[in-house]
């Protein structure tokens, strides 16, 4: 279960944007921050907005539905107690891998 899963070629991830993928029923947003990748559960804890469609600012993403600000490194949501789940994601030989 804990084996890294290959998601795809890094060129499929435009810099400064998120992309959505579904792994074993879990919707995950993978973000190319330019110098690293980050992955979080794709639904905003507020009202379920798709984070992969949000505007990326540094290492934060702004939910496109009600502008909640989510820290992609820690999963914490600005001014909220709830967090989004974070996942380990890494680049190897030009491919992006995700660990659940």
């Amino acid at each position, binding site marked *: 279960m804990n084996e890294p*899963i290959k*998601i*795809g070629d890094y060129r*499929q991830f*435009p*810099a*400064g*944007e998120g*992309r*959505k*993928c*579904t*792994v*074993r*029923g879990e919707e995950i947003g*993978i973000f190319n921050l330019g110098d690293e990748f980050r992955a979080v559960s794709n639904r905003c*804890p507020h*009202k*379920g*907005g*798709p984070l992969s*469609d*949000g*505007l*990326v*600012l*540094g290492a934060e993403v*702004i939910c*496109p*539905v*009600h*502008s909640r600000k989510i820290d992609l490194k820690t999963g914490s949501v600005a001014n909220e*107690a*709830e967090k989004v789940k974070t996942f380990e994601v890494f680049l190897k030989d030009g491919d992006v891998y995700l660990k659940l």
Partner: protein
Amino acid sequence: MTASGEKLRRLVVVGNGIAGTAVIENVLALKERFEIVVYGAEAYVGYNRILLSDILSGARELRDTLLKNGEWYFENNVRLCVNNKITSVDPLKKAAFDGEGKRVPYDKLVIATGSNPIVPEIPGIEKKGIFTFRNIKDAEAIISFSKGRHTVAIIGGGLLGLEAGVALAHRGLHATVYHHGDRLMGQQLDDEAGTILKKELERKGIGVSLNHSAVEFIGRDSVEGIAFSNGRAYEADMVVVSTGIVPNVELAARAGLQTRRGIVVNDFMETSDPDVFALGECVEHRGRTYGIVAPIREQARVVAASVSGKKGVKYEGTVEATALKVAGIELVSIGDFSGTSPGSESLTYSDRGLSQYKKVVLQGNRVVGAVLMGDTGDHHRLLQLVKNQADVTLFRKTLLTGATGGKGDGRVVLSDEDVVCGCMGVTKKTIVEAIQKYELTSREEIGEKTRACTSCKSCGPLVDQVLQEVLGGEFVPVAEKPKTFCRCFSISQKELAAKIRSTGLRAVSDVLNKLGNGVGCAYCKPGLSYLLSEIWAGNHREERSARFINDRVHANIQKDGTFSVVPRIYGGVTSPAELRRIADAAEKYKVPMVKITGGQRIDLLGVKKEALPSIWADLGMPSGHAYAKATRTVKTCVGSEYCRFGVQDSTSLGIKMEKLFEGLHAPHKVKMAVSGCPRNCAESYVKDIGLVAIQTGWEIYVGGAAGMTVRKGDLLATANTDEEALRVATLFLQYYREEGNYMERTYDFVVRLGMEKIKRELLDPESPRPAALLERFNLAKTAVAEPWKAEIEGRERKARFEELAVINE
């Protein structure tokens, strides 16, 4: 229920005015987990009642006085029930009952029912044309009745009565204030100040008759005059009765809670029932009731702490202090200003010629009250002296001359606990901490973090003083600092645009790295995208990551993450074939909702992102740009082609205009309309650009709005031909595209620049502007590409719209 399954306690707030809203703000700030429900008897989101006289005078509209917008309630999960009055409360069963008889159980209840106007029992008071003045409905009724009427009598020379008189005089009515006592504003002013105020009002054309007690309203159906106890009688077309307020204790009294003049509360703002709290004008605390806003802020903080079980914070009463402006004169009244208590002394300075008056009341070595008139620069200093009960022996000689008119130091000595902003109840300590923690440098930033100086703004100089104390020489007072584009830049939009032109930067990331902080924010990234595309007329380097999702996928994101598709239908004129294609596409993609929009277009709602390019291809129609800060639809009426009343061909001109402006982005959305006659069926008067047909051609209105803001557009010009009308509309659009601040709608733009300047720049035959504007408009037009077509044909379609991977192993 929360995610963890815990059942939330329910807090029910009765009353959606300043007090109710302040309690909710404070509870939210404590991060207490409550299910909050607020009831308001009026049909509006809560508004700032203090500004009611501005609505009456026409200086402000309702929208400018709202305490919160609808989004705030939504964002904070506060359920707002407007136009619904809580009619009874059963404290034993911990339930309230609303106007529909529905039971509303609560864990904690807050009563903030405010006060009611006193309606004196004077014969004839039921006649038409007699009003109280306490809420929006009153203001609206007074305004509508005042149309075409000439004289208004105000019964009552208190603060509200005078404000009503001044406001109605401003509307062109001949106003007279009849006051039963021998001094105006007896609650706030002494004899000398009252005399100066009376003279000042009379100079402004407002009549003042003291010692006049009304005994009868005369007239058949509507009021025609008033008889007074001194035997005199005067004519009046309408009457505003403003004889004071009385705490609204009805609900509490019926619930069996202890009431006297107001609802009795202790220092924790508890009523006689430990789960019911009350605050604001409806309460009586230590035998006192208040009719001003400052106590509410202090009380709200205590209520929030008490309902959250953090009992301990106490409310110990407020020094009465009123600062206001009547008929253009500034007035301040603090504490015990009369100077008639045994053992008190008064220091006074009076100049009736200049309408200036100052009085400081001492009790022993302490200042207990003051009245300032005309020059109120000493307001905060004196208020602090009263609050701190400071010994003034050493500077008694300068108490009167102290810090008036900005001469001398003028600084107020503030301790940490001193309240700087009375409206919002913010202490110096809170402001100092916010400045240090967030590195704040301006009033605006402090307002954002602490809400200080966001209501009446009279504490601005005091906030500046705190900034000065904390920042020292680094502080630049607000007036000298131009507004920057956003926090990521230290220069304004105008300077930024000039720098972009001179340095030749063409990508958002380059501008951020070279001229800004390198990261950007949710305002400047999309803002720069617009600015760059505008400056380089499409020859910029597009960075999709700097765009909002709507602009990335050319569709409007909905609450569930699906999108809406609005195809372009020029002028709202369609055909059976086009409708058939839309119907086919809606069926094929199982579109959950097909809706006619407010702008006369067809909206396909609930489309998945992946399906967007194919549905566009099947539709075969251009984008309606319903998602963008760009020119939107041109709404049209039938016009002279079919309508019996139409005087010009509005559909043809509407279609022409929509084609001409199609695809142009702007600082914000631009809604348009063309109406075939002044009946205005296309609602042109309330559009960003609206054309209205007249016998001789067209009127061009700009800056109209009918959203959360409602504003009738200003007439920019009258044109004799279709071509001339389009030329003027084009000039305005391009002018707005170049001079508008990002996210500034035309209704703010025209107010900021002023119609005179806009007319001078665009219409004056001597102005060099039109030729340059038209040239750049044409250049921008050549750069417009149809976004849907470009995506359908584009190579990156898959990466832009489709889910990356679905893995199930």
